[in-house]
């Protein structure tokens, strides 16, 4: 039992998660610090931190991946703890180790756990050996020679995954075994290219699968709880777009089963701090997908329905405290939906967009986690996620309505976003029924197109344009009053 107390927390991240973490750090009376690349100089996260330290890199992203530099800055600033957020170095075991070696508290699980769950094949084996459900699969490493044959035996449809991958990259669905060999070759070369590791494993693919994940939490005293599930089935190219809790597709029994499996896995791994276990669910069956040993982007929906500040709990657990709640203390109230607002043009196949943030007015009365502000700009330097809108209401229907209204009132001008696409998803009958799966967006390409505004709205838009653009007003004012009054008259 190690009690580590710290008075400051350095956030090794940026954007909306940095803002969100700093908020809780301040609420707990701790000193928030942040490292930032010059590209993020004027962002809300940097302005919110009490101490902001510049880091450099060949690219802005490279700076945030430079663990050694970040630790050096943390030491120099006297930071007591480092919170890695998500992405970047959050699942880098080496970084976690180096932080600990530097005498700084790493807000996350032990490095060994990161190692275990970071290797997808190891993680899968770990879970399977302990009797938790995994999809039928074939792992290349088991026997390279027979891999293709064993893959074939898994049966179609199957999913080829790079063992060093994660976050949806480098995965290929194979429905026709005839192309399996070809796809294996391609997947191997992609794995090599993206992750520096061409090893593969193949898993049974669930048709119309639903992505269900469970938030788990452990402390350094061996206590493990789950904070129920989230459904993240609304995805595009394996990137989540809408997440909600609870899942509209599970029965009470199924919910209990999945959550207890998740808690079981966490216990087996002696898990500490926050983590998420992801499952693929379909036709009453569910299989372990992977475990993320960090805080997830969509953690707010769990916070809203359980009323628990997960970052606060992360910091307490990292300081050596015991979890303040038992499993029976955790309840789900109402329904929460999170929408991810991206700088993307849905009509152009979600091509990333850039631009200045000329107007930024989030809707009142609803939680918005955002890392941008009016006067900033969206560049190609970073991931295009701009903000998250989280709607919490007594029922799912009410949450959908609240989310839709929030998007309708959310003013973000200067850079095109996927707000219109999100609203069309929220209004889609299948989504409203809760009849969702990870292929839903791919099945509904018609939702991507931005419909033209109707005639009345077009007229209003043109009227605003005419009254706002100097050239148009000046041309109107240039006409002498007499001629304006006579109007378009001919003798």
């Amino acid at each position, binding site marked *: 039992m190690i009690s580590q107390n710290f008075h400051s927390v350095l956030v090794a991240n940026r954007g909306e998660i940095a803002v969100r973490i700093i908020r809780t750090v301040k609420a707990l009376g701790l000193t928030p610090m942040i490292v930032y690349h010059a590209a993020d100089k004027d962002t809300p996260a940097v302005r919110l931190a009490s101490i902001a330290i510049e880091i450099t890199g060949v690219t802005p992203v490279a700076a945030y991946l430079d663990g050694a530099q970040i630790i050096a800055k943390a030491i120099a600033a006297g930071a007591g703890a480092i919170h890695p957020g998500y992405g970047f170095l959050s699942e880098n075991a080496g970084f976690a180790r180096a932080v600990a070696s530097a005498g700084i508290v790493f807000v996350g699980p032990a490095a060994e756990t990161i190692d275990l769950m970071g290797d997808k094949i190891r993680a899968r084996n770990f879970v399977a050996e302990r009797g938790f459900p995994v999809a039928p699969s074939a792992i290349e490493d088991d026997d390279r020679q027979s891999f293709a044959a064993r893959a074939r035996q898994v049966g179609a449809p199957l999913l080829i995954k790079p063992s060093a991958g994660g976050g949806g990259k480098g995965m290929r669905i194979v429905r026709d075994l005839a192309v399996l060999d070809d796809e294996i070759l391609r997947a191997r070369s992609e794995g090599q290219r993206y992750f520096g590791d061409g090893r593969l494993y193949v898993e049974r693919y669930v048709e119309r699968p639903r992505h269900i994940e469970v938030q788990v939490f452990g402390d350094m005293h061996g206590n493990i709880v789950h904070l129920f599930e989230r459904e993240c089935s609304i995805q595009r190219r394996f990137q989540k777009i809408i997440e909600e809790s609870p899942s509209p597709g599970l029965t009470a029994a199924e919910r209990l089963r999945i959550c207890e499996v998740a808690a079981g896995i966490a216990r087996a791994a002696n898990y500490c701090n926050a983590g998420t276990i992801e499952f693929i669910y379909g036709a009453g069956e569910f299989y372990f997908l992977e475990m993320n040993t960090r805080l997830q982007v969509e953690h707010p929906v769990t916070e809203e329905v359980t009323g628990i500040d997960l970052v606060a709990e992360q910091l307490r657990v990292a300081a050596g405290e015991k979890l303040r709640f038992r499993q029976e203390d955790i309840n789900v109230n109402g329904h929460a939906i999170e929408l991810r607002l991206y700088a993307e043009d849905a009509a152009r196949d979600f091509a990333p967009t850039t631009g*200045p943030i000329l107007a930024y007015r989030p809707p009142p009365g609803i939680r918005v986690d955002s890392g941008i502000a009016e006067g900033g700009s969206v560049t190609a330097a970073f991931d295009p996620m701009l903000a998250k809108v989280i709607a919490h209401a007594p029922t799912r229907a009410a949450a959908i309505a609240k989310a839709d209204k929030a998007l309708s009132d959310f003013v973000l001008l200067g850079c095109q976003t996927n707000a219109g696409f999100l609203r069309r998803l929220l209004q889609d009958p299948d989504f409203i029924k809760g009849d969702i799966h990870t292929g839903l967006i791919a099945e509904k390409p018609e939702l991507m197109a931005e419909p033209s*505004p109707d005639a009345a709205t077009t007229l209003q*838009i*043109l*009227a605003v344009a005419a009254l706002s653009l100097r050239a*148009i007003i000046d041309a109107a004012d240039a006409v002498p009053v007499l001629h304006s009054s006579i109007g378009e008259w001919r003798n």
Partner: protein
Amino acid sequence: MQHLITLGAELHRVWLGRTATGYALHYDGAEVPVRLQAESLLRINGEDVPFVAVAEGDRLFIHIAGRAHALTLQDPVKYHAVAVGADAEDFVRAPMPGSVILTPVIAGDKVAAGDTLVVIESMKIEVAIKAPRAGIVEEVKFGVGQTFERDAVLVTLTEEKN
């Protein structure tokens, strides 16, 4: 000549005129009185419509009726200079007289907007003539070494077949 505003893929012709009491929008054959009731409130057809608008140069970003829109006021001189005939972008013309020094594409090639279609030389200056839009090269009309007048059609494009 009316003002030209592009909104999405559509071009709209509008005019703002003054009336005894304020302004009127001329659009689609009708004249509709319009007024900015307050900084972000449009009065039109008896309704008060809230909006947020920010201009940047000739672009205007508007949030209205629950959606964001971006529109551009076209400069009439530049707009009409290019829109010669129905498919101005199908005919890639020489901006000045000169001769061809490089033809990197051939008929049938698929090109993206901005791809170099032909490199010309004129008055000791080399210019790369780029595709104004994505499409398929229909014909490259001049070969290396051949000369042409200003506005001569150098390359023709056809629609990209999806």
